[in-house]
């Protein structure tokens, strides 16, 4: 029930924010902030309540569950359920949501009500994606985030916003409808095999099907998730959408929307089609390596700073894909860790870029140079997030990338070695960006106001979370451990041999601790 309440509250908050804009433009901001904070506090309370107690046997896979018939004619249920993995992403969604509201506090001045309406509806739909366990409901939420996001980019974006927003909409919608075909295919395959026509995730797990059926259906799902993630060569919408979106839009895109794609792969793609996914493993990991390297190289080649940050996302999401398809506990935990850390580090970089653009009205790197002299505080934080993004030990991203590469080593050595190159590349583009923008002489004689208290608070809270993840990753890892274990279990149950799952570390109770300790100390 509490899940429904949270999602409905945020939808309702969006409507209220829109209506309230007639009383003044501060109302929508405070309403959004209030709703999201309340929701975040509730989720953190839940997190504390269930922390470490997410027992597999005693509770079943879900911590909280609600199941009501919705369209009984087709066996569609309003079925939400949360496990540790979903909880982690719900917390992230609300945290990033608050950051997004705060980041657009002074930069969005026009049509404030409608802006916050869209913002909250995106967040509510994404929360729905993270907790829906009825495939129809999942698809419903999945599609629902598109329209408000489209408006966010198309109305409050920068100069080329119409092109970017339409491209974004068409790409993601194309993936979405292919997933719809996959969902319905699975529904009928399952119905014919068992006589039970249902969209229920738990029942659809382990559906017996022919090899090629599974492959085709998996491709339907993969289309949606790979476009969202995004994976080279389906990534071309991302640089445009990220660059043209307003700061809040970029933060949500990088922090949450891309994660929905990765979450879909972990929750649905591999568990529903374990054999097909295993056959696809090498190809997917190869594509992941291509994404890592290609994204990094293109990031280095950009002259628009926001586009640069956007391409780094492609590279980082390559690591996530690598971790998911390596499909062992270490790599999966690493993938989740990267997702959380990337949401914060890249989100923060987008906010800094947004703040810079608000001050100097350009995103062209050649116009910047030597900004440290005039805005030292912001530059310092930018350096922090840049090194976080390149994977400096002690910060969240490092833990994630380390775990992913460690996991990938066990499943495909040559590709893991190639992926490691990406870590070097990311050092190159991150440091190059810092050097080109913030260091050197202030040739353009910029005199800019440094960070305001609000901007500092946003960035410091994100920095704090990154340090926390880096030094004590166990908070995250033990929250998601059981979920990942369950997912792996359901996959290995339905297939006879699962070579990559036979990890000595993964089966011991200390499995989560082992890699995380090494992550923190090396």
């Amino acid at each position, binding site marked *: 029930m509490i899940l429904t309440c949270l999602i409905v509250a945020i939808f309702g908050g969006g409507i209220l924010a829109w209506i309230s804009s007639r009383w003044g433009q501060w109302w929508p901001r405070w309403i959004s902030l209030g709703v999201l904070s309340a929701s975040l506090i509730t989720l953190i309370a839940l997190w504390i309540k269930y922390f470490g107690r997410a027992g597999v046997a005693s509770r079943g896979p879900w911590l909280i569950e609600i199941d009501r018939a919705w369209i009984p004619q087709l066996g569609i249920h309003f079925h939400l359920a949360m496990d540790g993995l979903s909880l982690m992403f719900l917390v992230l969604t609300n945290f990033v949501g608050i950051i997004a509201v705060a980041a657009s506090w002074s930069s969005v001045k026009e049509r404030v009500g409608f802006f916050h309406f869209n913002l909250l509806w995106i967040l509510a739909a994404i929360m729905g994606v993270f907790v829906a366990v009825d495939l129809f409901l999942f698809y419903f939420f999945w599609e*629902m985030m598109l329209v408000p996001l489209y*408006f966010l980019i198309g109305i409050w974006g920068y100069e080329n916003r119409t092109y970017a927003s339409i491209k974004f909409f068409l790409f993601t919608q194309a993936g979405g409808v292919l997933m719809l075909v996959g969902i319905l295919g699975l529904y009928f395959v399952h119905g014919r095999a068992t006589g039970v026509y249902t969209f229920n995730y738990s029942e659809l797990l382990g559906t017996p099907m022919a090899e090629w059926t599974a492959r085709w259906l998996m491709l339907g799902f993969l289309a949606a998730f790979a476009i969202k993630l995004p994976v080279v060569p389906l990534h071309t919408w991302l640089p445009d959408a990220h660059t043209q979106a307003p700061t809040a839009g970029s933060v949500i895109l990088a922090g949450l929307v891309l994660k929905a794609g990765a979450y879909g792969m972990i929750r649905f793609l591999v568990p529903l089609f374990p054999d097909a996914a295993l056959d696809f493993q090498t190809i997917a990991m190869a594509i992941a390596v291509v994404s890592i390297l290609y994204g990094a190289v293109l990031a280095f080649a950009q002259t628009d700073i926001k586009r640069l940050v956007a391409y780094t996302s492609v590279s980082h999401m390559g690591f996530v894909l690598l971790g998911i398809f390596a499909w062992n506990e270490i790599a999966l935990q690493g993938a989740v860790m990267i997702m959380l850390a990337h949401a914060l580090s890249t989100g923060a970089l987008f906010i800094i870029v947004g703040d810079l653009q608000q001050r100097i009205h350009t995103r062209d790197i050649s116009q910047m140079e030597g900004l440290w002299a005039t805005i030292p505080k912001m530059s310092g934080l930018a350096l922090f997030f840049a090194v976080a993004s390149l994977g400096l030990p002690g910060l969240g991203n490092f833990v994630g990338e380390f775990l992913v590469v460690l996991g990938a080593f066990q499943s495909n050595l040559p590709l893991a070695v190639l992926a490691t190159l990406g870590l070097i590349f990311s050092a190159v583009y991150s440091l190059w960006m810092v050097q080109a923008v913030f260091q050197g002489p202030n040739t353009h004689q910029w005199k800019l106001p440094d960070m305001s208290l609000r901007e500092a608070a946003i960035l410091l809270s994100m920095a704090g979370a990154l340090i926390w993840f880096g030094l004590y990753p166990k908070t995250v890892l033990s929250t998601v451990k059981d979920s990942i274990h369950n997912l792996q279990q359901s996959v290995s149950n339905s297939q006879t041999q699962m070579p990559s799952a036979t990890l000595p570390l993964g089966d011991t109770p200390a499995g989560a601790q082992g890699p995380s300790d090494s992550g923190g100390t090396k």
Partner: protein
Amino acid sequence: MTRAELVVMLPFIMLAATPVAVMLAITLRRDYRVCTALTLLGLVLALAMLPVTLSQSSRESTALFIVDDYAVFYMGLLLATAIVLALLSYRYLKVQTGDREEFWILLLLATLGSSVLVASRHFASLFLGLEILSVSLYALIGYQRTREIAVEAAIKYLVLAAVSTAFLLFGMALVYGEIGSMEFAQIAALRSHLGDAERAFFIAGLALIVVGAGYKLAVVPFHMWAADVYEGAPAPVTALVATMSKGGMFALLLRFFTQIGFRADDALFWIFTAVAIASMLAGNLLALLQNNVKRILAYSSIAHLGYLLTAFIASGSLAVTAVTFYLVAYVVASAGAFGVLIALSGPERDADRIEDYRGLFWSRPWLAGVLTAMLLSLAGIPLTAGFVGKFYLVAAGAQTSLWALVIILVTTSIIGLFYYLRIIVAMFSQPAEEGTGIAVRQVLAPPEAAALVVVTSLAVWLSVYPSPLLHIIPKLVH
């Protein structure tokens, strides 16, 4: 004719009597308001009589009509659409020059024609309904006879409708020649006794009927008239062509071909498949090239008929539900979209250029919101009826493993999204100059507002809580 048969015919009698009443009212005194009130009253009374027919044990009336649950459902849909269209047309007509009262007579006749179509179980009544509908449409399309483009559209429609009628008649004649009956039930029963040579003529007859019906539905390759007629006709008439005319015809097609079991013949299956694929592709691709909102909607409607045919061809247990639900969603969304177009149109021309919609969201947020919702519904985005509808269509196709058709449906619907987005982008972009353009000058009249509110809430409600409707639909066919 027995008393029971008469009771069953009550809605039709009401629909036939109202135009006479309006005509008499006009001869007494030309009063636009009185005529409007009479029209609405007639439509509402006809709608109210539908439940009366439900109480009868025998739902057949003569050899021509059958007012079964299916017919009652579709007549309800058509009558409700007619009421909505009448409400939407009120202000539009009021600001036009020339006589306006006859419009109501023609609207009522068109409603009668399409109602007859959905209740017919005999070629004669089919033909009768179709002609009542067509003849009133000729006049309606050319109603603004001072506008050149309207007259052109009317003549185009007249010629093509006459051609289609010829095809239809010839097809019926062939079927009658082989079977010896014009009743649907007889045709279904006797077709299996046909020899090979007779079967060939029978199939040819059905194919000709498909051609005739195809013209009415404007599916490819019988679609040439659609864009021009949509553009030339007054906006309310365009809405009528898009909703009532196509809806009634499709309901009839569904009844006839389901009853005679068209899946038994490969030839018919391939004809329908080819038509569906061509409609989806051509409709969506040609819509990309248009700059006129009415023309965009014309081509999009061609594509939507293609989508509908996909589920129709699937003809699994989900097919009737899918087609009916989608048809309802399509009618609702089309009525809403044209409703906004009507509300923005002035006496000199219709608001059918994309520029008319530039910045509409900032000057007329509610109307723009309604149009956005309707276009998203046509595109099949969640929280609109079109989403559930499209879900059902794909489900119906997937159920009988028509993967090629399903893949074409979903990929072309992405192309479709692009042209809907073009209109939406225009509405949300910054207006060129404040206070210009045809759109901002029209004042929204209460009847229009009421109709739009009803249609929009229906579109959202059908998406959030579709089960009542989905519960009813499977019971319509036994």
